[in-house]
């Protein structure tokens, strides 16, 4: 089977390369098609999806990423801040000693050693081979232990019934949920909605990619500049890193 997949990949790459020469906007399509995983292939640990957030570019008061997430995942606008789901939120920080102010998006950090997965009694919280941490709503019982365990308050409990789901992002009352890294887009070779929105707004503060691929933009950047894992003292090996804090 893997042999056949290899053939398939070679074919795709060749086709893409061919298309690249013909198409007017070559480079970007070439990369996209080569990186897209065939639908029938399982994700593997060869890939580790990650995100790098440059806080020096992130604008205070800008919420493009949050709106994009709410739109993509049909979370709706936050009307009841206590109970509405917030997969991504903007945090405004001020360093106590120096008074330096900054702003950044906070969401599930897709820990390699996720406490939410450790504590989940049913195994509903799990980490995919490629590092994306998800909740399997089919077996989540809504005990909220994972919310108690997450050091980043990255999870929300669905407090009300819902009917307006994105067909590709099922969600409903009584389960816990959080940032999926837009897994439904990533599996088809796309990027998370927040990253796209940040770039579209011209801020380019979010970089998404495969940390395991030494040639990827994110891997290069992480190699070149000092990046920070939030609460690194907990040693959770985060998939989301920050620059400039």
């Amino acid at each position, binding site marked *: 089977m893997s042999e056949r997949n290899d053939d398939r990949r070679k074919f795709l790459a060749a086709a893409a390369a061919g298309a690249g020469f013909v198409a007017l906007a070559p480079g970007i399509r070439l990369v996209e098609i080569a990186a897209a995983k065939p639908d029938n292939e399982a994700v593997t640990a060869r890939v580790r999806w990650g995100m790098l957030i440059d806080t020096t570019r992130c604008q205070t008061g800008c919420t493009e990423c949050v709106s994009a997430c709410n739109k993509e995942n049909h979370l709706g606008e936050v009307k009841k801040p206590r109970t509405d789901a917030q997969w991504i939120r903007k945090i405004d920080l001020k360093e106590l000693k120096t008074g330096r102010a900054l702003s950044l998006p906070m969401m599930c950090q897709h820990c390699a050693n996720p406490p939410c997965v450790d504590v989940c009694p049913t195994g509903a919280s799990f980490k995919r081979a490629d590092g994306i941490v998800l909740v399997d709503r089919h077996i989540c019982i809504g005990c909220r232990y994972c919310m108690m365990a997450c050091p980043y*308050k990255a999870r929300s409990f669905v407090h009300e019934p819902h009917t307006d789901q994105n067909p590709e992002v099922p969600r409903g*009352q009584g389960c816990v949920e959080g940032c999926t890294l837009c897994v439904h887009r990533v599996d088809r070779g796309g990027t998370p909605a927040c990253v796209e929105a940040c770039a579209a707004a011209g801020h380019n503060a979010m970089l998404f990619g495969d940390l395991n691929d030494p040639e990827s933009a994110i891997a290069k950047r992480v190699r070149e500049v000092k990046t920070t894992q939030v609460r690194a003292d907990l040693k959770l090996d985060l998939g989301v890193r920050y620059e400039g804090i």
Partner: protein
Amino acid sequence: MASASYVETQSRPAAFWGLLAAGGLFLLAAFAAFLHFEHSGHVVTGMDNQIVWGMPHVFAVFLIVAASGVLNVASIGSVFGKPIYKARAPLSGLLALAMMAGGLAVLAADLGRPDRLIVAMTHFNFKSIFALNMMFYSGFFAIVAAYLVTMMDRSLNGYSKIVGFLAFFWRLALTTATGSIFGFLIARTAYGSALMAPMFIIYSFAYGLAAFLIVQGSMYAWNGLTLDARILARMKNLLAVFVGAALYFTAVMHLTSLYFAKQTDYERFLLLDGGIYTTAFWLGQVVVGGILPLALIFAPGATQTRVIAASVLVVLGGLAQMFVTIVGGQAFPLEIFPGYAVSSTFQDGIVNSYSPVLGEFALGFGGIALAFLITVVAVRVLRFLPQDDFAALKAED
């Protein structure tokens, strides 16, 4: 113990049905609350994305912890061979089962998807201390039930000691596991202490014995009996030891926490300026649950009524302690960026508020009502009234 013979409890049908009706009413209210929450979602409760565990958990964890503690009475009888406790072992086992059932029912009723309870029982993540707890709870039921059978069926009496040992160790492990539910939450300052699990054991001793004394006192009163003064004296002294130990360990825990720089902010919150949580700690846990009962017990001439009053206070203090531990621990802001002041739409950096609705209390009281009903019915149909062997008691003196 061969000379001990069982005294039949008095039959007072009207009063018995009255008790059942009262308990049933609370259970009904809890069921109504449950249906309401499940239908509308947790948005109608006081719980939210910050205070994810509220009043139902306060009651549920209290009942579970007390359930494991109440079994202590039986353990003292069988493991340490004390006759007056041995006579109380069946009642202690029954209460343990009843309270465990009540606590678990509340826990299940508060799930987001209670319809998937079967999933919870068939999918296990063996790394999860929570799943481990569920296994401990089911094992608890089986072992305590077996223990009751070996005690009540004379042909099996010979096994009661060994099953009693098993029950003793099982309940120690169980309470450790319950305490560890909080100990494993590395992220939360409030639960960072390694003392969490052992402290739950001490608490369980006090709460369990208090619950036992309340039920025992009520049963004696119901049957127009008076508890032998020597027995009363011993049991109240034991309660005093447990309550004192709980107070002492609480003090040790907070003092050691004060020593760690990371914890000082939380300690200041809890002990000084945490509002309701500070009040619940000092007034509820320390005064009502500790100092007052000790005063009641040690003031000269303790009567049965006074011991019951002390026990009720210990229970109230226990609920306050659970409130402080569970809700207070979540109310204190989770520190994501140490050294920074933070603000967001997701209540970062602020003390979270929690105003429980009536239904949450109804759910909690429903758990107590379930335990109560199981006890009342079982005591009615089987012989659980302690049967003391006064000759042996005298010989021991």
